[in-house]
């Protein structure tokens, strides 16, 4: 299991390249000819719905820290409890979700925060997570809930508690935003 990475500080993440065309001055219109209501509140509705459903019917072990939710819902903190029967049984972790205004077309930025970062081969000690659905394999059909479940299952299926081999180097040289890291996914077994 080898992880080589290249820090891509200068290159913009893929999703942004395409949309960086020169802005057309013409006011965008919907099909019915009315001016497009370009307020982010429309897409925020989805975030809102997700938040409400997380609070209403949280998956097992997952709780939303409602105090932390900012006014515009762009940052969430979620507590995850390690499952029974796994190596992380009894431990509690905290995830930070950061959404930008292109959500759900752009994946959220997810990291572990707090004083308890799980020791996992895919989790660096600064909290960055190496998970394909967080960068390349993201689809708008995924949701915060599904991401939490994936992370939980990633933790549960771990057989050995250890840090990634290039942990120290990565932590020293990485970008604060884990999405700017170019991940090479080598190991599908964990």
């Amino acid at each position, binding site marked *: 299991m080898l992880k080589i990475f290249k820090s891509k500080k200068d290159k913009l993440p893929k999703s942004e390249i395409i949309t960086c065309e020169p802005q057309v001055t013409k006011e965008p219109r919907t099909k019915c000819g009315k001016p497009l209501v370009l307020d982010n*509140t429309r897409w*925020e*509705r989805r975030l*809102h719905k997700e*938040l*409400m459903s997380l*609070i*209403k*019917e*949280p998956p097992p072990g997952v*709780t*939303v820290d*409602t105090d932390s*939710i900012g006014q515009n*819902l762009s940052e969430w903190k979620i507590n995850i409890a390690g499952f029974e029967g796994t190596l992380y049984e009894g431990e509690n972790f905290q995830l930070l979700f950061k959404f930008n205004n292109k959500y759900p077309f752009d994946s959220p930025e997810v990291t572990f925060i707090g004083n308890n970062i799980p020791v996992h081969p895919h989790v660096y000690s600064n909290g960055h997570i190496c998970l394909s659905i967080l960068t390349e394999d993201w689809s708008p059909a995924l949701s915060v809930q599904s991401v939490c479940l994936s992370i939980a299952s990633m933790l549960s299926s771990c057989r050995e508690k250890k840090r990634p081999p290039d942990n120290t180097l990565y932590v020293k040289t990485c970008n604060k935003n884990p999405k700017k890291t170019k991940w090479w996914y080598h190991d599908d077994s964990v």
Partner: protein
Amino acid sequence: MDIGLLWFEISRSFPILSGNVAITYSDDDSHHQRCKDIISLGLSDALSEIVFSEIQCAVRDKIVPLFWSNFPIGLGITEQTIESQFLMFHQFASAVGNLQKNVSCLEIFIERLNKLDPRQNIDSRKLHAILLKTLLGQMPTGFNEVVSAFYCVAFQIYIQMYTNPTAVLTDAELIMNKKECSGCKNEMNGCECQNLDILINKTNKALREMELLDGIAGESLTLLVQKCIKGHIKETCHGIFDRSFLRQLEIWLDETIINWLRKIFSHVCMHSQTPETCTSNIIKGFKVKLTYFLYEHLALSIIEQFFSIIIDFPDSIPAIDDLKICMEKIDMRKHFIRTLTNTLKVRVLHPGVNTMDILTGYIAAIKAIRYLDNSGIILETVTTPIRDYLRKRSDTVRRVVTGLTEEGPTDLTEELAKGESSKENAKQDTNDELNNWENWLPDSYGIDQTARAQLINVNRSADIISMVVDIYGSKELFMNEYRNLMADRLLTYLDFNADKEIRNLELLKLRFGDSLLHSCEVMLKDLTDSKRINSHISSDTKYKANKIFDISAFTISAQFWPTFNKESLELPDEIANEFEKYTKAYEAYKGNRTLNWRTVTGRVHILIEIGQRIIEMTVSPTHAIILYHFQDKDEWILEDLSQITKVPSTILRRRIEFWISHDLIKEIRPGVFKLVEDDGKKSPFEKTQVSQSLGEEDVESAMASASDQREEELQVFWSYIVGMLTNLDSLPLDRIHQMLKLFASHGGGIEFTQDELKNFLQRKVRFNLNPEIHVMYAWSYAYRSARKGHWESLARDRDRFRKRIENTSKFINPILTPEHRSFIYNTRIDKNM
């Protein structure tokens, strides 16, 4: 010189020394001679003192009591009969006359005294001052009545003689009433006004000369004049609002009252200033005071009737103009606000008044008060109670929205139509305020400070529509209600004619913005779409060939309409088939889409052939289906019918009542209904009975009621609350409220207060109605013994000591054993021996 003789001589000069006030005019020469004698004797000082004090005594003991004896001890009569008035008039006149005579005698003494001893220089002013003080000191309580009676009569006579009576008497009055002169109240023939006038003038002159006019008469005069003014205002202006009275009243004041006062006060001063300027100064003073008094009372009178003014607006604009002018001179704002608030509270804000009337009143009040005072402060303070009260009425929102959109020109529709132009102005104002800070002026003086603090954020230039909508503080409620009303209207009439609606919607959008009314737009679009779809489908040949009856559908986008109520109706198969056909045609027309029918809403055009009658009607689907089932079976039991139509019995019964009122069904036994084949054989009794239940058709709303909708919204929140509490165990009420607010703000405007939330949650708290009961048996004997007594402390001590003993014995016991003792003895003690 003989003392006796000297004394005799002196008392001839000054009869007052012997207590005699009256004087005989002895010749001055002898007096002169006597003076010389007295001066040579060096007695002038003593003499003048004696004389002066005698004068004072005389004033105090004789003259003044005599004067006052003419006045009755206070009778406390406020209303004076005419006879008593005249009586007192004459009394006063004669009293004053006597007084003057006596005082003039005294003045002669003073003159002589001055001649005797020029150094003293006692002048008449001093005498008058003494006189006034003594008079005032001995004033009886009935004094004012007499004086006011006197001046009352004087005024009447003055009016009669010197002013032109402005009232025009009709002939009848002339013949009947005017036998007596309004001045002296005598018969016309024996009018004594002239004589009385002379008497009045004399009395006034006397009072003036004695400088008593102010002291004695001043107060009554003022009161009388004020009463006059008040009465005049009431007579002329009360109840009439469409003319301005201010100018007229000022002229009246000048002509009548000031002139009269001038007459009384002329030639009043005989001292340093010339009489004319003195008079005019006094008159000027009076004029200013009385003018202000006039303004004040005019304003008070208008304020008292301001409620009627509001109702009569804009006809009552002249009255408001008058008030404006008065209020510029006198600050009556607080009084105005207080009175108006009170009047409104008593006359308007109580259960006996329709909501629509209160709203109309509110709007009229806004207009009137804004005309009066542009700054909007009074408006805010006065209308706040109205708003609070309207908020408590449950149908306010509906009324406002109906008022905004209904037929014919109402106040609100006018305002709405005017609204387009004024909206831009409103926006300008708020910007100007910030840019225009150099011209900022503070708010007017005199407003209650605590109320001011709450008014800070109010946009004072808001127009009427905003003020009405502002009753609830938010536009969303109104827009919601408008949406519901519009949905009801569209579904009830189902006539696919939306022009009026579209126009209203456009106006409302201009006023309130697009986003709130978005669903209304979609609703109207549904209407036009349905029309198109209907025409397309009915021209579809395949469908046309097959169908039994015409179906036209109002297809609606459920997400944008308010929720429907929970009624249901099951269609019989034949009819359901027809709907299937329509649905298929629709699906063919619009790919990938299908229809869910809401069977209970709609209009059905039916033809009924029963017995001899053929009736054509348009009814609701439930009615039609009921009658349809009666085709198959003549007689139905309510429960059976309810089962087959899936309509609850209570509602079904109501619908059947409709047919009963149309003589098509009758209830032969309780719960059993039968068709009526023939008519005409009904007894008149039955006929009258059913006509009670006739009346307008029961047009019920197809939508869920507002309270149901609220319940649903709160239900949604309930699920979140359950989730939150499951995760976090317990939360204080404001935390829950905060979190829910967070959701509501993003979710789309569901608003509620913390109180509502509390009520809702309290309803959710339930007691466990089937608790597990563990029965505890307590024996009374044991209970009694188990009570505390001093044995407890004994037991405790026992226990404690036992423990101590145990601990200590651990160490001491080994030492006390015989073996150990003998061992010690042997090793230590025995050895020594």
